[in-house]
């Protein structure tokens, strides 16, 4: 059942990529891949329907032996931590394909790479085997590199190679840690449940956990390792940026939760205070740098760094509430970033610039882009954490859950949330408001272009009003995860937190 999510996109990517023009003519490639992404999305929703919320463990498990010598098996499963990420992945894939330019050059390669990524990401979220996870994790490397450096902006070559190297380093770190985890625990298999790090000494656990944090920290990205992000996000075209920010960043936080907290509960509570402060610094840094940007895409890119900082804070505090908040924040950040990048893409396509100094008065009802600006205002608000929208729900749960453990970092994050509002107001003020130049004459935004934004916006509003639909999926799983963290260590955490 879960294999469908992986293999339909990957197989159709291969078919689209290799079959000659007669079977799938170049003009139809977009339509075909849109259909495939739609089917996968529907299948994913079907799985969501069947998903048993009360079960905290893995569901719909699949198992096939693969390579005994390496301890690699084809083992899939989904739980509350990954179900939302899967939905996000297939939804954003569909939106990325939908929002891509109708006459993209080299469409065959473009769409097959997107589908390949979609299948690979689904595989990574589903994998129940460390090596299988790593395999799917590394599978993203080359397609994203090509997507950035073929269809990107002006500095795409630089951005592409930078992304490639950072991600490859992250992969190397993660692989080294995985090998270490499995070898040191004496397990012969890389399956999740076969690896239990409880037997290791505290020092070893700490070293391995640091490997995990650094490896996934590059992908999330955490502050000193984030420098690939602005380049990659800005130089990538809008659909690719949606995938990068919406899906790939979640792979990092998911990995941190699953492998960092899930597999090193004891060491996790030792590093948690540092992580909380790190998250807060990330959040503040992202917000402050975003204020200084003159390019709206760059602003959105830095906003992403900030929002990922909240996830880190929530995972560090490891209370049941905070973890639900982390998962919700991952999901809503995916939605909000996708809509922002989509809208920015439309603005760039219609107006021809992303500069804050040149944009003006897009709100103007006749000659401007009124609906797009309105949606931009809405998503800016969602990003800044205005109640009634999903961003607020997620952030509020995060703060509520973290405050009791790490009061100071939480306050810093709240402050950065305020700063987010600052730069979004700057952004909206400079782009949507003001007076339109007399020379401005923008092409019309057709309805088809508005659909993804409208879908995302209605989701954002719906989940903001009806947050139960956002949080119910992960509650049981996260509670079960918290339960593995020993209570003694918990008190140490709070003591450490109090000392600060």
């Amino acid at each position, binding site marked *: 059942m879960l294999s469908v999510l992986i293999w339909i996109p990957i197989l159709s990517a291969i078919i689209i990529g290799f079959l000659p023009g007669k079977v799938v003519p170049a003009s139809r490639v977009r339509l075909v891949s849109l259909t495939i992404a739609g089917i996968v999305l529907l299948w994913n929703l079907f799985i969501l329907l069947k998903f048993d919320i009360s079960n905290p463990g893995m569901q719909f498990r699949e198992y096939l032996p693969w*390579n005994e010598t390496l301890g690699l098996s084809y083992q899939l499963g989904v739980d509350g931590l990954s179900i939302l990420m899967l939905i996000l992945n297939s939804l954003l894939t569909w939106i990325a394909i939908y929002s891509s330019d109708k006459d993209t050059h080299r469409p065959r390669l473009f769409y097959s790479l997107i589908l390949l990524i979609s299948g690979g990401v689904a595989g990574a979220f589903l994998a129940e085997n460390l090596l299988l996870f790593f395999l799917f994790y590394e599978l993203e490397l*080359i397609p994203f*590199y090509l997507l950035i450096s073929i269809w990107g902006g002006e500095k795409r*070559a630089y951005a592409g190679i930078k992304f490639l190297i950072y991600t490859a380093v992250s992969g190397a770190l993660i692989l*080294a840690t995985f090998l270490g985890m499995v*070898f040191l625990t004496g397990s012969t298999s890389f399956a999740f449940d076969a690896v239990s790090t409880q037997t290791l000494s505290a020092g070893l656990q700490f070293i391995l956990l640091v490997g995990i944090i650094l490896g996934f920290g590059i992908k999330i990205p955490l502050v000193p390792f984030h420098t690939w992000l602005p380049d990659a996000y800005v130089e990538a075209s809008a659909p690719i940026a949606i995938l990068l920010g919406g899906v790939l960043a979640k792979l990092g936080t998911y990995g941190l939760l699953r492998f960092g907290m899930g597999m090193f509960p004891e060491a996790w509570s030792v590093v948690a205070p540092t992580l909380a402060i790190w998250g807060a610094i990330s959040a503040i840094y992202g917000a402050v740098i975003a204020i200084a940007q003159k390019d709206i895409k760059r602003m959105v890119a830095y906003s992403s760094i900030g929002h990922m900082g909240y996830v880190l804070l929530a995972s560090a505090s490891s209370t049941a509430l905070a973890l639900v908040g982390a998962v919700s924040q991952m999901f809503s950040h995916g939605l909000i970033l996708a809509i922002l990048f989509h809208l920015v893409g439309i603005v760039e396509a219609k107006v021809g610039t992303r500069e804050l100094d040149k944009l003006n008065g897009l709100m103007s009802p006749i000659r401007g882009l009124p609906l797009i600006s309105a949606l931009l205002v809405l998503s800016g608000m969602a990003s800044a954490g205005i109640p009634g929208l999903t961003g607020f729900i997620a952030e509020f749960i995060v703060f509520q859950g973290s405050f009791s453990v790490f009061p100071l970092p939480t306050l810093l994050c709240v402050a950065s949330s305020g700063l987010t509002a600052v730069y979004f107001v700057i952004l909206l003020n400079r782009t949507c408001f003001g007076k339109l130049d007399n020379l401005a004459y923008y092409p019309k935004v057709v309805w088809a272009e508005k659909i993804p934004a409208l879908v995302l916006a209605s989701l954002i509003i719906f989940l903001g009003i009806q947050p139960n639909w956002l949080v119910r999926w992960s509650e049981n799983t996260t509670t079960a995860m918290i339960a593995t963290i020993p209570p003694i260590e918990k008190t140490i955490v709070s003591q450490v937190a109090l000392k600060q």
Partner: protein
Amino acid sequence: MDFANLASQLNAGTILPEGIVIITLMAVLIVDLILGRTSSRWIGYLAIAGLLAAIVALCFKWDAINPIAFSGSFNGDDLSIVFRGIIALSAVVTILMSIRYIEQSGTALAEFIAILLTATLGGMFLSGASELVMIFISLETLSISSYLLTGYTKRDPRSNEAALKYLLIGASSTAVFLYGVSLLYGLSGGQTELGAIANGIAQANVGQSLGLVIALVFVIAGIGFKISAAPFHQWTPDVYEGAPTPVIAFLSVGSKAAGFALAIRLLTTAFPLVAEEWRFVFTALAVLSMILGNVVALAQTSMKRMLAYSSIAQAGFVMIGLIAGTDAGYASMIFYLLVYLFMNLCGFTCVILFSLRTGTDQITEYSGLYQKDPLLTLALSLSLLSLGGIPPLAGFFGKIYLFWAGWQAGLYWLVLLGLVTSVVSIYYYIRVVKMMVVKEPQEMSDVVKNYPEIRWNLPGFRPLQVGLIVTLIATTLAGILSNPLFTLANNSVTHTAILQTAAVVSNQVSVIPAEKPEGL
């Protein structure tokens, strides 16, 4: 000694695969003498048929009850069979590549194939040789044929220079190797058979003496030359650039596999007493090779030179398995060499194809190739990405197994270095992919703009195409469907007597010096 006893001592059936290769070799030579140039249309296929027959014969020798042949000078155990298979396979693909290449250079194909088969023969015998003289003779057969092959396109000054360089370095390194071997003979009290040498040395009580260490270092100098491990690598870039490309393909896989086969057999059987020492030396070689190979490859502009440094680096990765010295370590080496065969030969086939069509192999000239030749672009991209270790290609599984075996043996720093240098390697492999795939049509190089129409029906192109597609499919699928290959590699190690006893001996060795410190 009656005849039956003699026959069982000789056990000549063990070298049946080599026998087939010899017959093919003679057939190729004689047919060429009788029919002259007209035979060149099918003589390549004759050689391929012979080599494939040899491979089939190898399969029948698998798990032979009595692998020792020629009174102990040749060992046909499963380890040797795997390596002989790798060498024969690499010769098959090399012939597929060379049919057109040699024709185009205006030299005789049959002579080329004859020398190549001789080299194959040398390599195959080297894989099983377990006696000093036998080792040296097969090593020389391999080396001398390689010098001839390197300088085969004799009107090309670069090929001449490469041959001279290879000859001078090769001859001196075999001389050093010979000196080490003669020391072994002396130290062991006149034994030439590898197992007997180990016993002789143990009995003469010169374990870990200075003489043994010198013998070890000299032998490693010879082996390091064959597997192009830094610092014995200096010939590699120049020879790779000057020699005919099919020859390079053979040297990078066949000759290297022979070197590793020699390394495993010689080091584990003859030097169990200094196992710590040779592991240490090889660690140094691996570290140097991984760093130098990967870092210098970044700065190359010629495709063949880039692949030369890449092959130095890949040798460094393979050495991790050798240093680990466990069953998994040896098995991972063998598995990696198997997949290395496919990916490297696929890459070299693409290089040959490109240079046949355009006459150049500069990396920048590849830009914009995807439009003119999608198959070549796809194959070269996949083989290079596989060399870089990108999932789900064969090279990824090969590297994972190497690193996993290394980690299990406690070689943490080596594995970490391997991971880091893998990241570096991705950069220069992807550079070629970028040239071919990412560049826009307007950035196309002049060579690609004038790219000839793709025609596979020209003489000699069909075998190239077959070789390309077979290796491409193997590169793509050998990782995903890796179970049979893993089983093959594992069985070849666990069924091999020398590796199993060596593991026991080297465990005991650690006790010996503690008991007999005066032996030092």
